[in-house]
């Protein structure tokens, strides 16, 4: 009886959430018709950053892995497609597909080295290997353009305009979010969360923890690569800062701010930080100070992030409702 009530309750809320999500999607779909070009561009940037942080959070919040250098997979995806489009005459579509795949392969290779270590050591090793990739890109002028990056990437006409690239970004981001949601709610995702909570115990119920973590790395790297590709579509350029460790840190902060135990938290965190940076960046060059203050407030008052905080409120309310019944 208890079970049935719960099923009905969760079914109801699921429908509500679906309706809210659809409404949101419609707003996002029509907004370029009303917004100035700059804000359409900003929205695209938010979606891309949200996609990277959500992919980061698969490893961080759901997998409990210290994913300290996620930007590397983002940057490598971007460079792959940019190089394919500028230096080869292969069909552009191939570059768009290869971007995420190369990121996934890099994640596999780095993962094979890193997942042997646990926790902090994993993070530090990832940071150093990632920095190695960054140095390579930064120094190899003839191939990657060095610290100048690659500019004027010939993105196909259909998706190179502001609204064209926006719609491409929106569609791809939504598809990726759905895929990640499905993965996290499949047995794979559930067991991943079990590993986060207790790797030792997971092993003793028969889970191959290292293998599971390696697959997680590949998935997270792949979706970060997708975001990198989208960035090239929107900006038409890449630069080495895309894989700097400071950007990785920013992504981490976005996850923590939004709520790293929730699925949409990182997207919210990315929205807040990218908007603030763009809006405040116009007034002050000390934007990082604002970031620092946000971070301190976050640690003291919202340790579970913004969305995590509201989810906790919601859960407590439904719990008390359930008791009343």
């Amino acid at each position: 009886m208890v079970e049935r009530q719960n099923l009905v309750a969760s079914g109801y809320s699921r429908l509500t959430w679906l309706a809210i999500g659809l409404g949101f999607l419609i707003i996002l779909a029509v907004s370029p018709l009303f917004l100035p070009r700059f804000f359409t561009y900003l929205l695209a940037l938010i979606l891309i950053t949200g996609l990277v942080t959500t992919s980061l959070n698969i490893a961080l919040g759901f997998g409990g892995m210290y994913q300290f250098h996620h930007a590397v997979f983002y940057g490598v995806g971007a460079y792959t497609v940019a190089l394919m489009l500028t230096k080869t005459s292969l069909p552009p579509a191939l570059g768009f597909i290869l971007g995420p795949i190369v990121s996934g392969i890099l994640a596999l290779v780095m993962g094979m080295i890193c997942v042997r270590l646990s926790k902090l050591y994993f993070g530090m090793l990832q940071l150093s290997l990632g920095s190695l990739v960054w140095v390579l890109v930064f120094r190899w002028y003839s191939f990657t353009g060095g610290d100048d990056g690659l500019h004027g990437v010939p993105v196909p006409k259909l998706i190179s305009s502001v609204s064209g690239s926006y719609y491409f970004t929106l569609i791809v981001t939504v598809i990726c979010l759905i895929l990640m949601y499905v993965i996290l709610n499949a047995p794979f995702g559930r067991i991943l969360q079990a590993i986060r909570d207790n790797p030792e115990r997971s092993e003793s119920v028969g889970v191959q923890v290292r293998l599971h973590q390696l697959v997680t790395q590949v998935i997270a790297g792949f979706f970060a690569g997708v975001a990198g590709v989208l960035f090239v579509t929107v900006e038409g350029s890449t630069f080495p800062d895309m894989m700097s460790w400071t950007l990785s840190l920013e992504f981490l902060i976005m996850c923590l701010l939004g709520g790293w135990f929730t699925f949409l938290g990182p997207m919210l965190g990315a929205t807040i930080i990218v908007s603030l940076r763009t809006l405040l960046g116009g007034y002050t060059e000390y934007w990082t100070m604002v970031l620092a203050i946000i971070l301190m407030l976050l640690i003291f008052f919202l340790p579970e992030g913004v969305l995590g905080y509201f989810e906790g409120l919601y859960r407590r309310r439904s719990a008390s409702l359930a008791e009343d019944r």
Partner: protein
Amino acid sequence: MLSVIDLQKSFDQFKAVTKANLEVGQGEIVAVIGPNGAGKSTLFKLIGGHLKPDKGRIVFKGKDIAGLAPHQICRLGVSLSFQIVNVFHRLTVFENVQVAVLSRLRLALDLITPARGLAIEETQEILNSVGLTNVGNRVSGSLSHGEQKVLEIAIALGTNPELLILDEPTAGMSPEETFATIKLLEHLNADMGLTILFCEHDIELVFSFANKIMVMRQGISIVQGPPDEVRDNQQVREAYLGGAN
């Protein structure tokens, strides 16, 4: 079913287990007792594969399992639960057990099927059998200590083991909870044919409940036998039960 032969394990210079011998037969309830630091937990971790032995053999159903990885040992039908509470504290009680069942069904790498529709009945059955059905939707970290210890057993059952190894299953429980847990373990042994190996501080409990007792002291197994035999053993009296009586 399980034989441990001359097992040895040291950490740096310290020999935690020097010479452990243990026989567990099909369908038995075997207890390991001994003072603190006797090497009981280390012995269990060696059997479960969480530690690799330096020397000696661990034979389970005719197969040497010493040095295998924990997940391989689990697949063979051995399930270990730990001394400290060791649940998946952010998952619900239901999900805790479901994870074990999903892993056993080899669905760990399934990326597509929604997990909320999988292994429902089996998980529910296990929760029923240990009496956690009514807290199934609670986050396991919010359960009482006693409930979490029972959940430990439920998770272990999710892997459908033949041999259940429990490191102090009733540690920190109230007398009522202890009684209920013992009843549960007796039920699992008698009705579901589970072989149980456990260690415990409460001597009274051990002597009333186990078919066979192994006594360890400073990493060495002194004696193994039925409760009466162990009670009368002179060495055990000196080592553990206190020479006074």
